[in-house]
């Protein structure tokens, strides 16, 4: 499976390179790289799939103008570097790929860097993903693992089995970044609870929540990486475990919660593998700030950016239901936000023993 994917990658890259070479030498025509356009203006909400998907817009990268030559060169250099990585059967972070391809271009006073910064190289990696249709984890370019999981589930990695329930009062397991290498072996939990931040997860874990409610706790430590999102989707769709999501009561936190449920603009081309439309975003609602009497000193004033984000969100098709509109209006009205940590003001166990159970009972999960 994993090796097969890598072989597929090498085949695709060779095909692309061959095509360029033939265009130039045999056809005497400008070679063109076709990529789907990524971002806001090529992201489409699919009512049917209940997720963000990519539209039909394409980008053509061709060395036909002085402006596009560097980009064309960058994509090819990165594609070749990844092929080398696979040839060596190694793994690399995106920073590693950046270092591996560092160079200067030109000479004398016109000398400049091949990459302006790591951002350029990251973009080239993304382009290689789009050109080959293979996500970078599968061609061994990974990020630092961020996701953590704890609870009655076993992961098979290589020949080894990791029991995420072991030590689950003391520690969590990192979610390996290449989910292609991971098989889920045994899921005994009744449901999956995703929280925004690892500190909150630790607090909940410590309270014995996993044991008491037979739950899997999972976090992306902020913005979730693809492995974490895939893990959530697999647990929900293959293992049929209900998924609930808790994030801070601010537009930023709500955005993170929605990554799991509807996807994101920057990864919309990969939504089919990443998004869990059945996930339920349960909290922290803006109304909870007042429902649960979070004292004023623990609330934060919304920034202008928050307000803008919330106004944007209000217009999104996936936010067109009464409850979300009510919540966003409340926020825009009060201009106050709140972190989940604020519940500690009510005592260290309030979050795991009062708030979360109440919320879970509302949807009938416990």
């Amino acid at each position, binding site marked *: 499976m994993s090796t097969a994917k890598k072989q597929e990658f090498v085949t695709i*890259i060779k095909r692309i390179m061959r095509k360029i070479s033939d265009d*130039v030498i045999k056809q005497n*025509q400008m070679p063109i790289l076709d990529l789907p356009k990524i971002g806001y203006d090529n992201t489409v909400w699919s009512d049917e799939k209940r997720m963000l998907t990519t539209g039909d817009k394409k980008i053509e990268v061709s060395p036909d103008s002085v402006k596009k030559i560097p980009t064309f060169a960058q994509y090819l250099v990165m594609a070749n570097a990844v092929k080398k990585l696979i040839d060596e059967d190694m793994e690399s972070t995106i920073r590693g790929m950046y270092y591996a391809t560092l160079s200067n271009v030109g000479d004398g006073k016109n000398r400049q860097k091949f990459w302006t910064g790591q951002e350029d190289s990251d973009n080239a990696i993304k382009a290689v993903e789009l050109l080959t249709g293979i996500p970078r984890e599968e061609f061994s370019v990974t990020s630092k693992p961020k996701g953590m999981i704890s609870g009655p589930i076993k992961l098979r990695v290589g020949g080894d089995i990791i029991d995420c329930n072991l030590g689950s009062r003391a520690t969590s397991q990192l979610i390996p970044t290449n989910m292609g290498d991971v098989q889920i072996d045994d899921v005994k939990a009744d449901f999956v609870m995703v929280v925004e931040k690892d500190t909150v997860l630790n607090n909940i874990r410590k309270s014995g929540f996993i044991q008491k409610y037979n739950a899997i706790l999972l976090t992306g430590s902020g913005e979730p990486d693809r492995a974490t999102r895939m893990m959530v989707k697999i647990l929900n769709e293959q293992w049929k475990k209900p998924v609930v999501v808790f994030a801070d009561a601010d537009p930023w936190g709500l955005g993170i919660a929605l990554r799991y449920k509807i996807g994101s603009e920057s990864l919309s081309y990969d939504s089919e593998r990443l998004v869990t439309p059945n996930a339920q975003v349960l909290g922290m609602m803006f109304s909870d700030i007042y429902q649960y009497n979070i004292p004023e000193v623990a609330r934060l004033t919304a920034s202008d950016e928050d307000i803008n984000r919330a106004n944007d969100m209000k217009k999104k098709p996936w936010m067109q239901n009464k409850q979300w509109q009510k919540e966003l209006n409340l926020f825009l009205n009060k201009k106050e936000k709140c972190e989940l940590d604020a519940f500690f003001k009510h005592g260290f166990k309030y979050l795991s023993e009062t708030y979360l159970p109440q919320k879970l009972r509302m949807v009938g999960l416990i």
Partner: protein
Amino acid sequence: EVEELKRDNSKSTTNLEKYKIIYNKKAESEFFVDNSALAGFTGERILYMAIRELIENSLDSCESFSILPSIKISLKIFDQSNDLWTLTCEDNGTGINSDKLPIAVCSFLTSAKYMEKQQRGLFGVGLKMVAAFSTKDTDFPIKVWNKSIDEQDEYYFELRTDIGTNKPIVLSKKLLLKQHYRIQYTSGFRIEVILRAKLVPVTKNKIYEYVSETSIVNPYSSITFETDDGVFQFNRRTSIMPNPAQEILPHPSDMDLKTLKKAISKFQTQKMSLPKILSSSFQKLSYEKAKDIVTNTGLSLKTPTGDFSEHDLIKIVNICKKTKFQNPNTDHLSPIGREVLTIGMMSEYTIVSNKGNDSTGVTATATAEEPILHDTNLNPPGTDDTVTASTFESTQNEKPTPTPFKNNLSKSNFSVKVLKPVLTTYTSRTCVINNRPTVVETGLAYGGDIPSFKLYRFANKIPLLYDEGSDVAREVISEVEINKMGITKKQAKEQFSVNKESKKDRVIEVLPLHIFFHICSTKIPYKTAGKESIASEGELKYYMKSCLSELYRKLSTQIRKELKLKEAENKIRLYKHYLPFIVDSINESLGSKNSKLNESFSRLIENHLSKKPQIDIDIGDASSADSTLPVQAS
């Protein structure tokens, strides 16, 4: 004021009575010498002011008769140990009738300039101040050679001023034989004075600046300036002269009891009716309208004019103050004009300090002692209304300005440099400020060998050199944004800043740019009596801003073109360096080295780039009369 009696209390008791009588009334000459600051003659500025007054008198004298000015000024140290300087000024103007000459040179408040039109200087004071200072501080006579346009003969005078009485002392007056003529023009005036003054470097630079800037707005003049640093020649670059200002009748809304009584007294002997006198003495006032005015005061039209009392006349003044008249006409103004200012801007002569003997663009003649009678190097520009820059530019290129005589300047640190911009543009507005018609002229010169930003200010063709910070022109420059015209501050700084960290906030001030403002009016709204800077009076700023915006539009078109060209060049150079990355990646990925790939790819891209226009150069208005742009790239 409280009179002499208080003197009883004074310390000096000897001869009190006599002292009182002598000092009771001051002669004009004594008053102005004692309060010389009123005319700008303060300690360090004496030589600067003296040169100004002499040059401005010469220019006015030539212009009133439409004579192309040829002026020779010289400032040389005469006696270092006593700070004595010889100042000489010679022109080809009208000269002065020899009977009137002594009072014209020495007696304060005597002038031919007392009339309503645009002129230079403070009338009846400047030249007299130069003479009085010479008399006050030295025992040398003022020497004058004079050939009046109505006399043919040349006279030589030696004069001094009797400061206590405001009268000239004629030490000598001689009719010269032809062979002794100093003035080689058909008419002219030459003065030589010894002045006592210290010349500090700041003032010296201001003097050079003054002469340079004068040559810019008077490119139809030939100015030779000789100092101990060398001889600086500012050539005549055109024979076009702005129309001279015409004297006009006063406008009735400026009438007061004094002007009205003066008008009446003028026609005293002619038994004219009051309405007739009014319509003959004021502009924009018809006989009918004058009759209405007199009738409205309740006065009888039949009363002989001489019988009106002051009380009657004040009623006329009052009515006139409240009556709406047409705006005054502008015949009394003499703007520089598009042609003349453009020529000035296309060949800015400027005295520069030479560091490291850089001789590029230096031009100075060594003909120190011989007056330059006819400037054979004169570039004859087209006589038609539209002087296009390209014609001008090519003429310049064909006939370069004379080669510098290095010997003469080798020990000096100064030289004259001609700056040639790649773009000049001009615009003007006529408006009414302070009840006076006012012409705002602006010009802009950009690029070429202009080294950096500079603002030039002129009022009635006189350069304003001091107090730039508080001038309305500064405000105008601060308030008109060039980046609204399509260039960002970043772009401008990257392109032009020598020091990228420059603290200068204004984009405009990092550009190699000269901006010219010229305001003409019979009542310039100076900020202070020192006449160094112009106030933001009425709508003046609005009109200046409007002019500047128009200039900026032309400028930004030019700069955008330059930026695009430069950017394109850089990129084309770069593609060659990217190709190896592309070729190596393909070869490595395919695990085989196709030797043709590099060559084919290179050919493919080069063909492609050469076919496709890399930048769309917007030729736009480059050919219009006020925007001059040499061809840069096809």
